[in-house]
């Protein structure tokens, strides 16, 4: 029985010895979901997130020398994705975000799930996405990378191309705005619930 590190080394050696097409496929498989979710959280809609994610991977796979070290490749990919998402929002200006078209994204597998639970999940995800919209693109990225993905501040700084102090400022702003948004939403719900019902 091999140790964990030797198992990892064997796995890595197998990955390196794979043909180019298979290596590319494995690389996309490994990082696609993480990068898509990151971009989706920042741009706020599926179609744009899909386009940006595809562009990011095509760009990355064209410079395969950067992908040899898996850990560094993951960070590098996050950086390209962050820049692409911010550039996209900058190009588009401050136009209002398109809400998620839930009906198009319902998977077949989810039909058997508990509808009430599904509704709660959908509501919480929608609430999260709405809260993100109250932040600037850089604050959004900082919050998603630091608090959702759990990346260290240094990695966020690298992805955003700024200092750690600036990242700290983005994170603080994002958390304060996020809390403010949630408190406002709770107040709205309370007022809505206490309103007199007219028959």
């Amino acid at each position, binding site marked *: 029985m091999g140790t964990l590190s030797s198992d990892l080394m064997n796995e890595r050696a197998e990955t390196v010895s794979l043909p180019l097409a298979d290596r*590319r496929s494995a690389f996309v498989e490994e990082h696609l*979901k993480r990068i*898509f979710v990151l971009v989706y959280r920042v741009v706020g809609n599926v179609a744009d997130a899909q386009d940006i994610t595809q562009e990011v991977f*095509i760009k990355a796979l064209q410079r395969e020398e950067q992908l040899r070290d898996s850990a560094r490749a993951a960070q590098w990919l996050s950086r390209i994705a962050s820049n692409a998402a911010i550039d996209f929002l900058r190009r588009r200006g401050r136009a209002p975000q398109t809400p998620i078209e839930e009906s198009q994204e319902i998977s077949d597998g989810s039909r058997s799930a508990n509808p009430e639970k599904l509704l709660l999940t959908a509501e919480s995800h929608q609430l999260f996405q709405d809260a993100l919209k109250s932040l600037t693109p850089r604050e959004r990225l900082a919050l998603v990378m*630091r608090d*959702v993905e759990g990346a260290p501040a240094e990695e966020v700084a690298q992805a955003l191309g700024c200092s750690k102090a600036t990242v700290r400022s983005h994170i*603080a702003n994002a*958390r304060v705005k996020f809390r403010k948004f949630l408190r406002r939403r709770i107040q709205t719900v309370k007022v809505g619930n206490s309103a007199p019902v007219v028959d």
Partner: protein
Amino acid sequence: MRLTRHHILALLAGGDAAWWQRLSARRNPQPEDPAVEEEFRRIREQLPEFRDLPPYFAWDSLSAEMKGNILLGVEAGEVVRSRPSGRAIGWRAGFALAVLTLLMLVGYWGQLPVHVHDSDSGPQTPLLQATPGQLAARHRDAGFSVLFHESGASLELSGAVGGVRADFVDEETGQLTVAHVYLD
């Protein structure tokens, strides 16, 4: 940007505050601080839940579509990049080609008839030259010149028989100097 107390509490909740921020928060504590910090902490603890997409998301079909597009895009890019440049030659082949070209050039110059050009021995026919600064006569290796201190447009007579003249007026003294060279 100057951070407010709530900003610092938000940073403290995630363990992101710098030492001076921690110090300033602990030095002047406000009664509501623990509750606010705790609220930031609770919100933060829930956020990793959104690391994944919601369960209603049709991820399988979307990822399959994206993966196909990405691999196709990469291959298409490679085809486009390789087309205009054609097949590049290696450095060894390039070096050999350069040496061969050099040898051919040396051989070509070696085959050319030697042309004796006696450019250093001066003009073959007598040459008279007059400028505001000088008067000169040259023939083959021999020659002489009368120099003034100015220079300007010149007049050259090649193969002529006769003479040339140059006048020079000294601006300070007004003295006129006339130089005349005859050629037989």
